[in-house]
């Protein structure tokens, strides 16, 4: 069981910078970063017209299903998935066993280029997420940063439904 994922301003900025760079270096249309549970972490590129919440959930479902397949044949996980369409293609990879990097690209790029750039960026993202994990663990063990939720009252919760 993984601890809650907590993303602070500082790391969020780092992550967003990296995927913004990936969009241009890989000539991609869009890049998404998704939590393995289907929650969107960050996106970059031309996201208009894409339902990002649905995309995140389905990507996670996809990774979960292929991960299940991997176990059935004795693999740990498939770290890269590739879906080829008529115009657009999706390249999906797993970073640090916990986040999913999604790159959508068309004929302006190529699978080779995307692979190459994803590999490079993957190392950077892995480092950032290792750090985030560490911080999250500290926070959940009561050390570290203040939580806004420690202060929630029953009234706050009740008000959500009024």
């Amino acid at each position, binding site marked *: 069981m993984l601890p809650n*994922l907590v993303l602070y301003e500082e790391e969020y900025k780092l992550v967003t910078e990296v995927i913004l760079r990936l969009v241009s270096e890989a000539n991609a249309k869009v890049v998404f970063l998704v939590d393995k549970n289907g929650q969107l972490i960050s996106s970059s590129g031309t996201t208009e017209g894409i339902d990002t919440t649905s995309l995140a959930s389905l990507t996670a479902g996809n990774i979960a299903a292929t991960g299940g397949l991997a176990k059935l044949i004795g693999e740990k996980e498939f770290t890269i998935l590739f879906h080829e369409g008529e115009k657009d293609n999706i390249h999906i990879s797993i970073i640090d066993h916990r986040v999913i990097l999604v790159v959508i690209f068309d004929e302006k790029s190529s699978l080779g280029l995307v692979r190459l750039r994803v590999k490079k960026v993957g190392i950077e993202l892995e480092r950032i997420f290792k750090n985030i994990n560490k911080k999250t663990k500290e926070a959940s063990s009561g050390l570290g940063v203040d939580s806004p939720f420690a202060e929630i009252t029953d009234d706050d919760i009740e008000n959500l439904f009024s």
Partner: protein
Amino acid sequence: MSFINYSSREINCKIVYYGPGLCGKTTNLQFIYRKTNPQARGKMISLATETDRTLFFDFLPLSLGDIRGFKTRFHLYTVPGQVFYDASRKLILKGVDGVVFVADSQMERMEANIESYENLRINLKEQGYDLDKLPLVLQWNKRDLPNVINTEELHKALNSRNVPAFEAVAPEGIGVFETLKAIAKLVLIELKRGTSG
């Protein structure tokens, strides 16, 4: 496993509707979808067979409003209820913050309810969760049908934990929002407990 984003000031929580096949999980989500303000919800996704049986999951993202300046988002999922989809059910439980167990109140589905509840316990345990500790709400659905078992029997069979339980008729929305509200509350209370250490 919730996701707290300090940068966009959002909390995301995952709620899974569990229960035997045809007990009304998908119907719960459909009703919530229909009755929620379009600004407060995303698209509902149903990965279903051609005969409308859930194949992998239904998914409905909801925004409930702000708490202390944080947008609270709930991602609702249902599992496929049929026994042979067990591998998929396990996957959907990953990272769950709270469970709604929907029981089918019909007499002849009692065994299926109990089997599904035990299956939930086993599948949660595999992910490192304890069904006796996780935020949990029960729903006694299909109260409109003639051959229902009484709620005392249902409590005895399925609610040894004595968690909140609601009678429901999901297609008419009876009990649907009460159930959702109760599980959302329990999840937020758990979040508060978890972070205050």
